[in-house]
């Protein structure tokens, strides 16, 4: 029998109480929020519980919400997949905008290693307990975190682009 989403919701709220909130079905995936402190426990429970059996960590990524209040400015998003019942879930943990920190998932899934490094590389989210948290796709010398919303797409100092129709002037710096 397929795993019902209401069962997932009941089991999680029964075990973690108000650490898991905001259950909502978005398109074909059940999504919810997990308090950052409980992320690792929730993931372990999802993986090891004999009914839930979310055996596969599909994806880890970060999102930046600069317009939110300071405690919810970053989010790490986890997609997990139960291959036996063929159910996917997604959960988010919101993190502080000044000091984004969350536990690593590398103790549960080896695949989290590089995906967390990538998230750190682009958002500066610190994964506590990660074995080798350093940049992966960008160069080591870089100081900024380029996927943050405040990071501009173009180098503001470029002078070779002059296209006034699209609001680009040679001095892009003063453009915004």
């Amino acid at each position, binding site marked *: 029998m397929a795993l019902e989403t209401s069962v997932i919701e009941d089991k999680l709220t029964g075990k973690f109480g108000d650490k898991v909130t905001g259950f909502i079905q*978005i*398109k*074909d*995936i059940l*999504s919810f929020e997990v308090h950052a402190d409980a992320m690792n426990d929730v993931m372990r429970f999802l993986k090891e519980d004999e009914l839930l059996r979310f*055996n*596969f*960590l*599909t*994806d880890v*990524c970060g*999102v*930046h919400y600069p317009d939110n209040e300071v405690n919810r400015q970053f989010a790490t*998003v986890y*997609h997990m997949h139960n*291959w036996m019942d*063929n159910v*996917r879930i*997604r959960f988010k943990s919101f993190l502080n905008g000044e000091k984004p920190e969350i536990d690593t998932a590398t103790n549960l*899934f*080896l*695949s989290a*290693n*590089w*995906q967390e490094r*990538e998230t750190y590389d*682009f958002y500066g989210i610190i994964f506590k307990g990660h074995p080798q948290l350093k*940049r*992966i*796709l*960008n*160069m080591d010398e870089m100081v900024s975190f*380029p*996927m943050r919303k405040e*990071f501009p*797409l173009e180098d503001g100092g470029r002078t070779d682009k002059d296209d006034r129709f699209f609001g680009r002037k040679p001095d892009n710096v003063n453009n915004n």
Partner: protein
Amino acid sequence: MSDLLLPPEHRYAKMIEQRQNEDGSELSILNLGPTHPATHGIFQNILLMDGERILDGEGTVGYIHRAFEKIAENRPFYQITPLTDRMNYCSAPINNMGWWMTLEKALDIEVPKRVQYLRVIVMELARIADHIICNSVLGVDTGALTGFLYVFQYREKIYEIYEEICGARLTTNMGRIGGFERDWSPAAFKKIDDFLNEFPDIWKEFENLLARNRIFMDRTIDVGPISAEKAMSYGFTGPNLRAAGIDYDVRVMQPYSSYEDFEFNVPVGKSGDTYDRFCVRNAEVWESLSIIKQALAKLPEGPFHANVPDYYLPPKEEVYHNMEALIYHFKIVMGEIPVPKTEVYHPVEGGNGELGFYLITDGSRTPYRLHFRRPCFIYYQAFNDMVRGQMLSDAIATLSSLNVIAGELDA
């Protein structure tokens, strides 16, 4: 020699010194890559070698990182397809179709059956092209160049089919929201028929050349193996996971684009070594051929795109004479299309595994966040684990059988 390459505080430098003190033997550092003909892409691996045996490795990636996710946040939805081409450039149409299907899921667009079948055909052709490259290059890396050149001309024929469908060859930028930019021409179907007639014999010959070849088997069996549990934990998907014995295939688990209409097997291996990966890809080519034949036989008549004027560009003649068409044309080209606030994750079975698109929209003209789940990136981290204790030449064969595509890995 080796202390010239590494700073003294590097853990390998310490390991070399420790070994020297223990028994006087000398470990060495080998810098494989970033550009090396056997790495098929820009990967650097610093290997700690004991003679010809690999004790440990450390990979560096990101040499061709092009910030696709950042660019995608600043482009209208239409202009993101060319970015997806440039990820797995060996099977670009799968990436394109995956992206359109993600958008269609976000916009709740139902596409006509004919479009779904045509998409299946082009995606399976792309899968064949992908597997042709991977398997024949594995032959090259184990010393058999002939097979590679022999089957490569059929990749060329697949590219001619792409060209007939969309005008481009490598980076295809194929399709639109809701369908294709034009109906497939009779010439395209003719080329597909020719391909289906000629290719099986060639592939059979290629298979005979390698599959039971003593040298090839010696070079690939038990080389770079990975257990099913470990592969799962490392996030393996696609042929590499199936070679380890798990029959996970997105086309079966979550059928998209009418894959449920077709009969096909999911080939699995057993030991997860290089030979099994070769065999799984080999068998998948046969399954893909069978899917294409079924799709052609059952291909329904009908429109080649969904009726969604908000998202699908009107025909050019109408734009000149019809006010509404002009408005739609303008709005679409300027990226002013209505996109609801939502979140979707859409996986497709790419050439290398589960290619996922995680899209967050906030109602504006660009994605708020677009994350690509790139199978290569996730499974390449297992490489060092797989080659530990193996010979250097085994590492080359393992890398090539994993089919790591630098463009997809680095995004």
